[in-house]
Each structure stands twice: as structure tokens, then as C-alpha cells.
């Protein structure tokens, strides 16, 4: 019987099967941020096991609230900083070098096809875009990951989502994943991996593939996976060129993680992406999705462009392309947060930051802050935000606030109009 991507990765990493359907896997990467890691660190200290299994496999960042906004967040940062220094964790990204974890770590080349990755963050599923198995876990799993380099996972079942056709202009990976979540519902992929396959995925760059995989969790999925191909190799090449004689050799090696032709799936879905329009969420669940056309004219108070979903360079290019020479509506305020310092620098060099500022955007440093209502763009009660983030839960960006999830193109157009609207790039053809 053929195997899925996740089954192949599980087979290659199994340490133990303590019970039926339960796998203990060895970990290639343990990623850490300052919200969920300090309690794990403090617990390890308290039980006399302040150790790390392998400092080279642990990557850490301060990203959720940075720079610190108060004494408590300063304490969280300090706990991370002291711990990273104490254990010789070289890849620790502090203020000045820090960015949103799921944008920063891929950019550093930390994730490879076939890897197992955990992090105390539900959007860890993003890294499956490289053909890895990457899953969000709680602090206890993280703690054991740090100490022992293992994690338990249940037997992986996989849903295969075939994305056929070609995206219309003005329609993006964000619109695709919102449409897929609508089809699957918020728990349609619970305990399952989602493989994204087909010509529409093949045509996506890594930025778009990460957007796709980032929101697998919003359908309950453990991990979103894209198949490693030449796009993956090109992206990783600066980091792997010493390991392989050629890109073709790298691709041949990574191809062992492709699913077998007779792999068995729990479910298969097909979506012809050429039928899609720009999408937006309404209400408080990420599967509550309508077309922008249906939501046209809905007023918003704030626009937010950033996050691990859509704060990458390609996203900023798309938004700036729409904002160039325009200004935002006086009825709204707008914030852009390039997801990493590298993206910020490139956006500066390309003149994108100038465009955002001329349009009336506030440009903030890379941080997760606003997405989960912690800092840098929290909503007041009764306000709504047109946001390129991933979660529209009740109160997510601030108590009593409403979040409408959308693509950077739609967010930019909405900033100009002051109400939800389609970007001029979308002509419907």
C-alpha cells in the first residue's frame, strides 16, 4: 500500500510506538517563541532538568510582543534571552534581528523537505510548504521536545486537496485557502494532514505556498503540505548548495518525500481555482467565508497587512501595487508590518515602504502583535479590521472587535475605499 508524505516522514522518524496509533517521533527542529516557551523553560528549571537535546536544532525568536510593551512581556523576553545564551542556542533572534517566526525561520533556510518540526504555536503548519511535517503543539510537548528531541503524534491520516486551473488576476493563495476552509469547515481536517496538490500549487512561489499551508489549522489540520519541487529547491538553494552537486541532485533527493501514486487518503477534494473570486470572512469563524462581492461596502475601521499568513515580500508588493499614488480613506487607519527585517529591507529598497507611507499607512516593526490583539494595532470594542491575518475569532484582535480575513490585494483596495471592496486587479476575467 502506498504512502502519503506524512506517512513517509513518520516512518523515517519513528522512535517508539507506545500504543496503537501513537507514534513518538524524533525531531529535526524545535522552534520557540516568547509566549509559549518561558513556562516550559521555568518548568525545566524547577524540576532540575534545565537542558536542551541539541542546541543546533533549536531555533528561537522573540516575535509576539516586540519590543516589549510592559514588564511582563519584558520578563518573557528576558527568560528566552537568558535561556538561549545559557544553552548556546546560536539561532536566537532578538530585537533588531527578529521577525514573525513562520516567516523568519523559512527565510533562514531552517526547514527542509522530510523534516519533523514542532513549535508551541498553532501556525507551525506553515512549514509544511517545504514538504516537511510541521505541527503546532502545547507547552508540555514543547518542553519534552526541548529536553528529549521527541514528540508524540497520532497516526497521520491525510486529506488531499487537488487545486486545478489557473488563478484569475487579483485572486491569490489567501482566497484559495479561505475557499478550501469553507469547503472543509473548521474541524473538517482535525487530526489530519492536508496535502495541497495540482497545477495551481505547482504554479505558486514559496510565499504563496506558505500562505496556503499557514491556514491548514483553521480547518483543524495538523499540517498543510506542498510537494517539494524545483520551486522549493530554488528557494532553499543558498542554504543547501554545499550539500548537493546540483539543483537537480537536490530535487532527486527531496523527491523521496513525494507521496506514492497509490497512497491512501482519508478524503480527496478538487477545487478548480479558476472559478474563484476574492474571498473574505464574515462573523467569527474562519469557515464563514463569502466573496468580496457579497460583502462589498461593509465598513471597517482598521486595515492590517502583515502576519505569518501574508506579511511576506510578495504580499507587500501586491498591496503596494494597488496603493501606489493613492491615499487611504479618511474613515480608516491602516497598519503594515513587514514580517521580517529582511522583508522590511527589501520593501525599503524596492520603494514599497515609501508607497505605504505616502498612502497614509503606519509602518511597524516585524511582530505578531496585532493579529492576536496583544500589541501594535489592537481594536476597540465594536470596531472591525480588514486583515491579512489568519484568525477571526471573537475578540481576536481586541475585545468586542470583528476581523475580516482577506488577501493583501483586497486589504489594500479596502484601505483606499474605506469599505470592503475588490481590488482593481480583479476584473472577473
Amino acid at each position: 500500500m502506498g504512502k502519503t508524505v506524512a506517512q513517509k516522514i513518520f516512518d523515517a522518524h519513528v522512535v517508539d510506538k507506545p500504543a496503537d496509533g501513537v507514534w513518538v517521533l524524533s525531531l529535526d527542529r524545535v522552534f520557540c517563541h516568547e509566549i509559549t516557551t518561558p513556562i516550559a523553560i521555568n518548568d525545566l528549571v524547577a524540576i532540575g532538568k534545565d537542558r536542551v537535546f541539541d542546541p543546533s536544532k533549536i531555533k528561537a525568536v522573540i516575535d509576539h510582543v516586540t519590543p516589549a510593551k510592559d514588564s511582563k512581556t519584558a520578563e518573557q523576553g528576558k527568560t528566552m534571552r537568558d535561556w538561549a545564551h545559557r544553552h548556546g542556542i546560536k539561532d536566537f533572534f532578538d530585537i533588531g534581528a527578529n521577525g514573525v517566526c513562520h516567516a523568519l525561520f523559512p527565510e533562514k533556510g531552517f526547514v527542509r523537505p522530510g523534516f519533523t518540526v514542532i513549535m508551541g504555536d498553532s501556525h507551525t503548519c506553515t512549514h509544511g510548504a517545504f514538504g516537511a511535517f510541521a505541527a503546532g503543539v502545547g507547552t508540555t510537548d514543547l518542553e519534552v521536545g526541548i529536553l528529549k528531541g521527541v514528540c508524540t503524534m497520532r497516526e497521520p491520516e491525510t486529506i488531499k486537496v487537488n487545486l486545478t486551473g489557473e488563478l484569475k488576476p487579483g485572486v491569490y493563495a489567501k482566497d484559495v485557502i479561505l475557499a478550501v476552509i469553507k469547503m472543509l469547515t473548521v474541524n473538517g481536517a482535525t487530526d489530519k494532514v492536508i496535502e495541497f496538490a495540482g497545477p495551481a500549487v505547482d504554479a505558486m512561489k514559496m510565499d504563496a505556498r506558505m500562505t496556503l499551508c499557514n491556514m491548514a489549522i483553521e480547518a483543524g489540520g495538523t499540517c498543510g503540505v506542498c510537494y517539494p519541487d524545483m520551486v522549493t529547491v530554488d528557494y532553499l538553494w543558498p542554504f543547501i548548495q554545499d550539500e548537493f552537486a546540483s539543483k537537480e541532485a537536490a530535487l532527486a533527493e527531496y523527491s523521496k518525500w513525494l507521496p506514492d501514486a497509490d497512497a491512501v487518503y482519508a478524503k480527496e477534494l478538487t477545487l478548480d481555482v479558476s472559478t474563484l473570486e476574492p474571498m473574505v470572512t464574515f462573523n467569527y469563524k474562519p469557515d464563514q467565508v463569502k466573496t468580496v462581492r457579497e460583502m462589498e461596502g461593509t465598513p471597517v475601521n482598521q486595515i492590517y497587512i502583515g502576519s505569518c499568513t501574508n506579511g511576506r515580500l510578495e504580499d507587500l508588493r501586491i498591496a503596494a501595487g494597488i496603493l501606489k499614488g493613492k491615499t487611504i480613506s479618511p474613515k480608516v487607519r491602516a497598519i503594515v508590518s513587514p514580517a521580517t527585517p529582511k522583508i522590511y529591507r527589501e520593501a525599503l529598497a524596492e520603494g514599497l515602504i515609501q508607497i505605504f507611507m505616502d498612502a497614509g499607512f503606519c509602518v511597524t516593526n516585524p511582530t505578531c502583535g496585532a493579529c492576536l490583539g496583544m500589541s501594535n494595532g489592537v481594536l476597540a470594542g465594536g470596531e472591525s479590521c480588514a486583515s491579512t491575518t489568519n484568525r477571526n475569532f471573537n475578540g481576536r484582535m481586541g475585545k468586542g472587535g470583528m476581523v475580516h480575513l482577506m488577501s493583501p490585494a483586497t486589504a489594500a483596495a479596502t484601505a483606499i475605499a474605506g469599505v470592503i471592496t475588490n481590488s482593481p486587479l480583479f476584473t472577473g476575467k
Partner: protein
Amino acid sequence: MKNFNGKILFLDRSDINTDEIIPAKYLTELTKAALKPYCLEDLSQPGFDPKKDIEGKSAIVTRANFGCGSSREHAPWVLEYNNINIVIAENFARIFRQNMFNCGLMAIQLDAAVIDEIFKTFSGTEAELTTDLDKQTFTITNGKVTKSYPFAIGDFDRELVKAGGWVSYADKKY
């Protein structure tokens, strides 16, 4: 092993997410105990008052997809620090469920029809739960009606509950 008996809090809704269980603004706390006052603070449920309705409760019965959203283990912790060590639902989000057992707490899955029957029989009454982990049954009584329900948890999950969580289990074994 922790206590899995006591009064039930009924939450008649699906998709209760981790932001509702413990809002992100409290994730800056550095101790689990500090989370205690904020349990279910943002729960979107007409008539629910977190200040009054949680007091004295030791179990939750709810519908589908409980604990969806964030990976924050603060969600099970805030329940635990309010003496709620067991949640019974149609199903759970993966990370929340694993976090519960990793902490030595229980997330018990029952068929939708059984959950519905429990709601119809006991919701709105002073119902109390008694759990027998070895026999894998629990009993609910409200003084007038008493009913027993079988449940199934995996051998591994049961070992975690008995060991008091994944850290002590893993430390011995790996």
C-alpha cells in the same frame, strides 16, 4: 492522578475556541496560577457569566470541536487552576486534546447523540459527575436521575493520566 469528579458546567455550543477560553492578552503571565481569574472570559454564549458560572464546577460538557484555534496550553491550565480537570465533548481540536492529556487531564470524546442525551437529561440541573478511569465509565446524577455512560480512551492517554502527564512519562522512557 487528578480529581475527575464534581459538578458539571454545561456549555451548549460547538467550536469554543482557545481565545474564548483564555484571551491572548493574558498570555504574558509567567505562572499558570495567575491565569485563574480569566477562565472563559470571552466566551460568546448568551446568559453565561464567567464570574459566577464557573465557581464550584469540576467538569465541562460541551458540543463539537472544543479548544479549536491556538496551541496555547494556557487553555487547559486555566481550566485546571479552576479545578476543571475533565472536558466531555463530541470531539476536540487536536492540540487542545493532546495538551489536556499531556497535563494529566482528560478530554473525553462521546458520540453526538450521547452528548445530546446528556444535555437533554441534565443541562439546567445541578448535575454531578463521577469518573471511573479503570472501568472507563462515568456516572452523572442530579438527585432525581442517575445515568452511567461508557467511554473509551487509548492505553497511551490513560498512562499519561496515571503518570500525571507527558513530562514525567517521557523523562522515564526516552
